[in-house]
């Protein structure tokens, strides 16, 4: 009776070894990777996602984990959809992959992309980052509870700065749904840096930051009211969660690695193995600690579950359109026409 579980682990181990062996043999036979592995980052160089992939690039390079270099290709624009589309259409040979966070779900939900996670072969999820809700340092609100009550008693008055259609916007929507009757006034603010500047200047009342952003900005004159984790963040143990403050909202951000559909499974396995090895290097451990990310890696069943859970979670969200915006494109068109007439008159009279 006692031997059985031990044997099972042994068997499991051997089986695993054999599997890894097979993968290695196939790899050598097919010669993958034959050329540099291109990672498409669908955001500009220097942003959070770009830095994230560059940390892996550095770790893989320093520890010589891959015979071929990792090359980063930034295809920025339109909230990551330009880059994810070109990754989706790339040759599925494992030499082009995509690294994209929860934006892959939100772009589809928001209606800016008609493709989503189901159009890729997921490779792995690496690194989870918590999210905090923050206000200006001298704000009247000292707890999330007070702020949420205010937002319920005076709906659509507190201005919430977000990046519309991005995961950050969805964190805000989850928060709003966390207490009935709460309504924020959402405005477009942009990336973390812009949200900090606008919060500091008092142009918005509250906003959300990833833990890495919060760590970076917290001494610039802002304070966090709550984190949106299931439990308190180990790096900020004094910061209570929204759940503790009676707001039923949770959210976090994860980075996912995707390969184009029909990429051969042994190449996916190779990449999983590569990421797995990278995760335990000194470089990744240190960087993740600096960025306050949990060094988790998910593959296989666990990954599938994460992906379907995240897609599911968005289904409960409905987007209220913000204030009617002026149809600037038509105004400009009319202005151009008027200028055109003036120029014609000028040409004739000359």
């Amino acid at each position, binding site marked *: 009776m006692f031997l059985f579980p031990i044997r099972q682990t042994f068997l499991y181990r051997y089986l695993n070894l054999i599997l890894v062996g097979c993968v290695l043999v196939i790899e050598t036979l097919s010669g993958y990777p034959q050329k540099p592995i291109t990672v498409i980052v669908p955001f500009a160089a220097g942003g959070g996602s770009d830095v994230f992939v560059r940390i892996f690039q550095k770790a893989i390079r320093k520890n010589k984990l891959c015979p071929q270099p990792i090359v980063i290709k930034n295809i920025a624009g*339109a909230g990551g959809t330009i880059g994810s589309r070109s990754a989706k259409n790339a040759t599925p040979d494992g030499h082009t992959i995509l690294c994209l966070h929860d934006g892959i779900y939100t772009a589809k939900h928001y209606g800016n992309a008609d493709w989503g996670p189901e159009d890729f072969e997921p490779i792995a999820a690496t690194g989870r980052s918590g999210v905090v809700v923050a206000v200006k340092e001298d704000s009247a609100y000292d707890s999330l509870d007070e702020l949420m009550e205010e937002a319920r008693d005076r709906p659509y008055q507190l*201005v919430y700065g977000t990046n519309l259609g991005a995961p950050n916007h969805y964190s805000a929507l989850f928060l709003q749904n966390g207490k009935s009757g709460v309504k924020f006034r959402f405005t477009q603010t942009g990336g973390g840096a812009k949200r*900090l500047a606008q919060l*500091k200047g008092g142009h918005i009342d509250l906003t959300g930051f990833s833990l890495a952003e919060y760590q970076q900005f917290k*001494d610039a004159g802002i304070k966090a009211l709550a984190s949106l984790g299931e439990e308190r963040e180990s790096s900020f143990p004094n910061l209570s969660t929204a759940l503790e403050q009676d707001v039923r909202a949770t959210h976090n951000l994860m980075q996912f690695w995707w390969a184009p559909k029909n990429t051969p499974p042994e190449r996916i396995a190779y990449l999983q193995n590569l990421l797995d090895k990278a995760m335990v290097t000194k470089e990744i451990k240190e960087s993740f600690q600096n960025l306050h990310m949990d060094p988790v890696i998910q593959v296989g069943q666990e990954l599938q579950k994460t992906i379907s859970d995240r897609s599911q979670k968005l289904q409960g969200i409905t987007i209220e359109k913000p204030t009617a915006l002026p149809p600037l494109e038509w105004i400009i068109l009319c202005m151009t026409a008027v200028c055109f007439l*003036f120029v014609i008159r000028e040409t004739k009279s000359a």
Partner: protein
Amino acid sequence: MIDLFSTPSILWLVFLGTTLGITVGAIPGLTGTMLIALSLPLTFSMEPVNGLVLLVAMYVGAVSGGLISATLLRMPGTPAAIMTTLDGFPMATSGQPGRALGLGVGASLVGGIISWFALWQLAEPMADISTMLGPFELFSMVVLALAMLAGIGDSTRARGLLAGSLGVLVAMPGMHPASGELRWTFGLTFMNEGFRLIPVLIGMFAIGKILQDLTSKDGKIEEVSGNDSAWVALPVWLSNLFNLVRSSLIGTFIGILPGIGANIGSLAAYMAAKRGSKQPEKFGKGSEEGIIASEAANNATVGGALIPLISLGIPGSVIGAVLLGALIVHGLQPGPLLFRQNPEAVHAIIGTVLVANVMMFIIMVGCAKWIAKLSSIPKKILFPLVTGCCIWGAYALNGMWFDVSVMLIFGIIGWQMEKAKLPLAAFVIGFVLAPIAEENLCAGLMASGGSYLPLLTRPISLCLLSTAVLLIIWKRKQKESSTDPPQS
């Protein structure tokens, strides 16, 4: 800081970075952002301080290098050099290419040093002031910049405005900058981002210029010729002292504002110089004041853009964002604590701004003779070379052929606009500013619940808007009084 820059290896890195930066800045189609993003992996194996020194030197070099092709070929190598084409090229074609380069390089040095001083001594208060500007203020500032387009170059007011509004119109397709919804994309995914700046810029200026030269039948090609010295005497600088300081301060402050950066910096300084000049009619025809204003301001934006990076941890420009990423990858924690935790990194950044600007000045003045020869390369070699660089640059941006075709189409548009005497600079600046204006107006409206009132009730916004209105009215009066008599 002095210790750091007395080691030969660091000076060598500054030299390398500045030279590479000047080279890519001068080549139409290649940008500093590209160079820095490509070099970033190479710095992984370096000490963080050495890596930062190299990258900042590249930044300074790239902003400065743009003036070479802007002056000699009328093709701005970087968006920041658009305003330099207006006076640099006419001066170069009138037989003084050396002087045009010398003025640009000298003004760049002054702009760099003034903004370095602000970065060194005034970073924190200036960053705090910049956060006072909310979406309404930023919108009003862009409106003011757009109003300035009316007087750009030597074209008429109607033509300046038409070119500007065409530029704004071309910026409309793609993702709405505020609501994130798609507009005018005709269901084509590659249109989601709309047209990008680099293909439009190099298409309009570089490809357009080549088409124009190739098709001019009467052989009336504007040739740059002359072999004058790039050394500009001290009295010239002294008589332009006020212009130099004003342009540098405008550049530094506008450089702080995220997303607005170098382009508006040089535009605003140029227009301020034109308004303040005793000879405004020379602007657009080879005015030395115009070259000085544009170049002092665009180099000053470098120091400006680094101010919020160092004091708040937020980037003031695209290249600033890449530098921020470099800090994180190198294991440093950007933000207000950077000064305390990694003072050596902060000193390296600040020091490099100064040393690289001086280095840039020495390299450019020292090589001005050879640089000026660039324009005497025969057209049948130069044109294919420039076209090749442009195609490569447009493609390398995102690895998409769509960007290359956009560049070629805008080449044809630029060529035709030039024929119709519509100023290209107004078009491109309208194109750059439109999304910034729209994003900020819409963000402001979303925050105010749809009310336009804050545009007039917020003092800074009111001030900027009324200046814009005054500019247009004052402009008309001046035009009537100065141009009417000869016409009648």
